[in-house]
């Protein structure tokens, strides 16, 4: 069983919803990332989505675009990101890490080389935003060799037929994009998401995560009622941006924000238990 599947199995047994923070690796400075990841785990992160910076993040809104720009100012490469994961794994052997990003940096390293290095570093899942299942069969085969999960997106515009197809390729969990739009730009509509998740569950037994439109404890708690995982991205990245000039204070501040979400979700999980 992969570290991701194990994580979800344990949470399910406890009646809990997974909390997944997203941060861009190397933002605003490379040394911040590993301490930040540990702080996020301490604040209640169950899985971590670590963004691989890319020069042209066309599925991201301004908040994560700027995070990529900050990281790239320091020339943070995919290799550096893998080094950060390895360093994180020195102290933490249990929290799954999913790399999230775009195809090109992975292609530039080479799919096979990347898969091997990612496995060595302790990566558990890979989500390439601009590479749907149809285009990622080669990468998927390489990741399969090391039992790294290929995570795929489902969107509000995904047809039932595509849902079925995506479900047949997905591993670990399926990530439902809760808004039509780029990251961090709109708030989600819970009842709409509920309907889509119900439809998606007809085609898969995998856990379902929801992200893109969750901004505060209230929306996190509302989503935790219908999803197996709640992904928080732009809200945390905005907090990182605010601490650009005071990076030493940043891990605690971002972790504090995540802890609020954790409390809101736990309160909801308890209420429904």
């Amino acid at each position, binding site marked *: 069983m992969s570290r991701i599947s194990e994580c979800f199995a344990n949470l399910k047994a406890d009646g809990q919803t997974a909390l997944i923070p997203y941060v861009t690796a190397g933002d605003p400075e490379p040394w911040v990332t590993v301490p930040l990841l540990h702080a996020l785990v301490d604040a209640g992160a169950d899985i971590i989505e670590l963004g691989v910076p*890319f020069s042209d993040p066309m599925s991201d809104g301004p908040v994560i675009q700027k995070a990529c720009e900050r990281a790239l100012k320091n020339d943070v490469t995919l290799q550096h990101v893998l080094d950060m994961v390895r360093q994180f794994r020195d102290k933490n052997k249990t929290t799954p890490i999913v790399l999230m990003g775009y195809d*090109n940096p992975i292609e530039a390293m080479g799919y096979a080389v990347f898969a091997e290095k990612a496995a060595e570093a302790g990566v558990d899942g890979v989500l390439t935003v*601009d590479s749907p299942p149809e285009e990622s069969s080669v990468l998927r085969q390489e990741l399969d060799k090391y039992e790294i999960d290929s995570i795929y997106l489902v969107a509000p515009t995904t047809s039932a037929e595509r849902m079925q197809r995506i479900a047949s390729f997905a591993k670990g969990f399926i990530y439902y994009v809760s808004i039509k739009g780029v990251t961090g730009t709109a708030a989600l509509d819970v009842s709409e998401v509920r309907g889509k998740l119900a439809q998606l569950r007809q085609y898969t037994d995998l856990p379902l995560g929801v992200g893109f439109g969750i901004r505060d404890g209230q929306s996190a708690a509302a989503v935790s009622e219908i999803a197996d995982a709640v992904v928080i991205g732009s809200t945390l990245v905005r907090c990182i941006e605010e601490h650009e000039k005071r990076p030493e204070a940043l891990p605690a501040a971002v972790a504090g924000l995540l802890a609020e979400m954790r409390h809101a979700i736990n309160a909801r999980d308890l209420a429904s238990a």
Partner: protein
Amino acid sequence: MPELKFTDYFKSYPDKEGHFGPYGGRFVGETLMGAIYELEEAYEQYRNDPQFIAEMDKDLADFVGRPSPVYFAENWTKKLGGAQIYLKREDLNHTGAHKVNNTIGQALLAKRMGKTRIIAETGAGQHGVATATVAARLGLECIVYMGAEDVQRQAQNVYRMKLLGAEVVPVQSGAKTLKDALNEALRDWVTNVDNTFYIIGTVAGPHPYPAMVRDFQAVIGREAKNQMLNATGKLPDALVACIGGGSNAIGLFYPFIEDESVAMYGVEGAGHGIESGQHSAPLCAGTPGVLHGNRTYLMQNKAGQITATHSISAGLDYPGVGPEHAWLKDIGRANYVCVTDDEALEAFHELTRTEGIIPALETSHALAYVKKLAPTMSSDQTILVNVSGRGDKDMHTVAAMAGLSF
């Protein structure tokens, strides 16, 4: 050289998933997958629909002014002393460039698909103007994304778009040029996918755009083939066109691909010189990768980050290139070369003075290569060069090079 066989080309490329060999494809976020399948379906339905074709042909004739002439550049031919040079006059189209061939087609498609809002990206502003023009005519809302840097250097086209009723959005991210405008247009499309049609201006983007834009631009090559046969009794020996994303080049090349005697030259912008790193020549100096929905040659660093480009002409200032050109390069069917800003400027002035035709700076890159190629060929051979646009929009840039401003 082994004998090359390209006679199965038309039926082989792209494949059903939009691949030209390893290039092309559909590399977009899941939210857009539904929209690009919807577009592909509509395009497949209408491309062979007699009513659609008739409506498009009528627009191309009465609104654009097609067919554009093929003109024998006698003075320039004498001056260069070699092959006979023929110009395909896309500069005479309504709005001043080849771009309108494509926007006519895509806008008619948008209307049939019931889309009420048009978005586009633009570099030089020619595609933006061509899009704003068709949107005005069809009464569609039109938003054009343009890099803030390009808004500066193509101010006149910005004003034209505004006159036509389009909203021009300056893009402040990244290098503030064409690639960033494309990113922003894609972000808009994801956000407004239900009512919005994205008119991409070149043979880039996810499938079906590279094939669809090529088909709309192929009218250039179809016309030119007949015109050359009428004028000279034979096919041209060489075709030359500039390459930004590659739409005017593929439009000229495509109908000739299976005619193996016809050599093809795509000319990229070498900017300040390839060795300076400041250029926009992915086919000459780049490596394959994935950007803006397809796999193709890109200007990128070793870590897979897209690098900054430079060209004197905004329309060539793009780090990628249409995937079909990547494939034509790999299979050896077309040759890809590049010329510097200075060489392009020199050719700009030379055509203006010898033939009384002021070309666009993009086009001037193709002309600069003709200056190198023609003298190496004999006087019974012919070169057909695509004059993709006229130079009106570049008066500011050219004047500034001479230390003048208006």
